[in-house]
């Protein structure tokens, strides 16, 4: 059973958060708060020293987590601990390839098997995925595909063949948490993706508010949204006052759960 296979049809909400941010103990509280809202998906970001596809906010979150000497094992243990409260929420890991490689692919899978449903490896393109996809699929973990506005139709067809879980559509040509949303372009591309694949298409990158979430659902054909940077941003807006941050997080998640 993989809970990503039974995602609702519409208005899917996926929340991204960096593991160990700002410290391991605080991170646990953040994820507990997130879980209490029962979003459809939680994406667990594994901190990396050189997150080249991430914007300044997630970079900073990675830096804080690594400053407290968080190890990959600790991140995976945290996810395992949280899986006790998983209920219907799907668990997805988002990370860079070097983290998995250095940990060892088989050991990594052994550590997440049975409670992690999907994995997004940001810097693992279709051309390089071969053996990794095979091992993941043997263990019923979906390798989530990213499609960008630069991916043309021919390439999308190749990428989306046998896609599982959901498709992560990068809504802006940009790094996480940046650039403006172009609804027309999103709608055009999402439509074209949906012709090629039957799994849900989630829109990520640049979704910051309740209004963005509603607009995506009204103005485009997407099945849901991914929110990341905006969840973390609040911590810095509130001058790293953790208790106030936790409260504002609660409020924000309630808002975007439309």
């Amino acid at each position, binding site marked *: 059973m993989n809970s990503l296979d039974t995602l609702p049809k519409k208005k899917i909400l996926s929340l991204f958060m960096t593991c160990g941010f700002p410290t391991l103990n605080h991170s646990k509280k953040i994820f507990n708060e997130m879980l209490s809202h029962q979003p459809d998906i939680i994406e667990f970001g594994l901190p*990396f020293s050189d997150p080249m596809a991430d914007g300044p906010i997630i970079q900073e979150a990675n830096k804080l987590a690594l400053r407290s000497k968080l190890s990959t094992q600790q991140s995976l243990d945290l996810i395992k601990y949280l899986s006790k409260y998983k209920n219907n929420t799907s668990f997805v890991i988002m990370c860079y390839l070097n983290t998995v490689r250095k940990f060892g692919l088989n050991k990594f899978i052994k550590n997440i098997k049975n409670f992690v449903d999907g994995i997004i490896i940001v810097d693992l393109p279709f051309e390089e995925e071969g053996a990794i996809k095979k091992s993941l699929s043997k263990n019923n973990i979906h390798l989530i595909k990213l499609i960008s506005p630069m991916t043309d139709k021919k390439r999308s067809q190749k990428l989306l063949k046998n896609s599982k879980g959901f498709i992560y559509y*990068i809504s802006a040509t940009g790094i996480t948490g940046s650039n403006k949303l172009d609804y027309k372009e999103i709608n055009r591309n999402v439509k074209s993706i949906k012709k090629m694949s039957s799994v849900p298409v989630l829109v990520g990158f640049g979704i910051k508010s309740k209004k963005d979430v509603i607009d995506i659902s009204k103005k485009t054909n997407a099945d849901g949204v991914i929110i990341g940077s905006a969840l973390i941003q609040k911590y810095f807006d509130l001058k790293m006052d953790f208790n106030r941050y936790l409260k504002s997080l609660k409020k924000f998640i309630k808002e975007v759960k439309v």
Partner: protein
Amino acid sequence: MKTYKQPSTVGRFGDFGGMYVSETLMPLLLNLDKSYKKIQKDKKFKKELNDLFKNYVGRPSSLHYAKNLSKYINGPKVYFKRDELNHTGAHKINNCLGQILLAKKMGKTRIIAETGAGQHGVATATVCALFSLPCYIYMGSKDIERQKPNVFRMKLLGATIIPVESGSKSLKDAMNEALRDWIKNVRDTFYIIGSTAGPHPYPKMVRDFQSVIGKEAREQILKVEKKLPDYLIACVGGGSNAMGLFYPFLNDKKVKIIGVEAAGRGAKTEETAATMTSGTPGILHGSYSYVLQDSDGQIKEAHSISAGLDYPGVGPEHSYLKDIKRVKYFGITDKEALEAFQTCSKLEGIIPALEPSHALAYLIKAFKNKHKNKVVILNLCGRGDKDLFTAAKAIGFDADE
């Protein structure tokens, strides 16, 4: 004897190399690869590039017999391949001209680049001025501080310099930021990578453009010595000057090849940039290669007195050449490089950059009173003007006295 035919069509040097980037960049890289393959067969492109090499850069660079240094070493005959005489003072311009011609052909209207020592930044700013394209240079704030003359040069040439404050504030972080810029501005921007690092096709493309160094050196040495050299020596940071010299000799099995890395305060210390001596294979900036990393795969900060070698990664082709044992790699410390910097200045009347000073230091150390009757070519890939302040400070010279 097997002919050397790396990389594979997907950019693999053995297991090393590849394309490890996000899906936003993948279509761009594939397109770049296609365009690069096309221009390789384009005679007009070749002619244009050769004209620029000759009349703008001043190629061929000379092959100078370093008589005094040879005498001092009391070993082999040492030749300098003098790429420090190029316009802009280093080998970097060779690659920049090739890439900007390609950018023009691809219809790109905005150029970005990363720089460490500032040599690649200066070379990029130079070709952008020549071709009237807007130029944005990412440079670590630590490097801006230690390479002030080059910062001013780039500004004079009309480039915008974007200081990078993340991580170790040097080359690695400048490259992260440049990649982020590229992801944001995929449609109009061409990223001129300055070394044989990064995702395919960069390691191959940069090597090809730089191989003019080795091609010339081969002809020149055959002319004066009537034989191939016994040794090639070059410094390795990302590895572009070294690949440029080495590549045309890789099939000549009798030519022994040595790459010299920056060992900072020592290859066994935490303050080193000797990737192949102290690192392990991993993924950084889109390719699989040796890298300085901890047990969790977090990339470590490098250290070297030379900003151009201060990089925790290395081009994938070097990793391959190390593993197949075609090239041997050694580390040289800051202190050793500084000594060689002074020795070369005094003996040959050539102030080398701190980068090739590492190669010089290795040559002096390993060849002293040895290998007589042998011939060595050392790539003098940059001049030392940019390093005067850094070197003066390290040596303890007060210019105001």
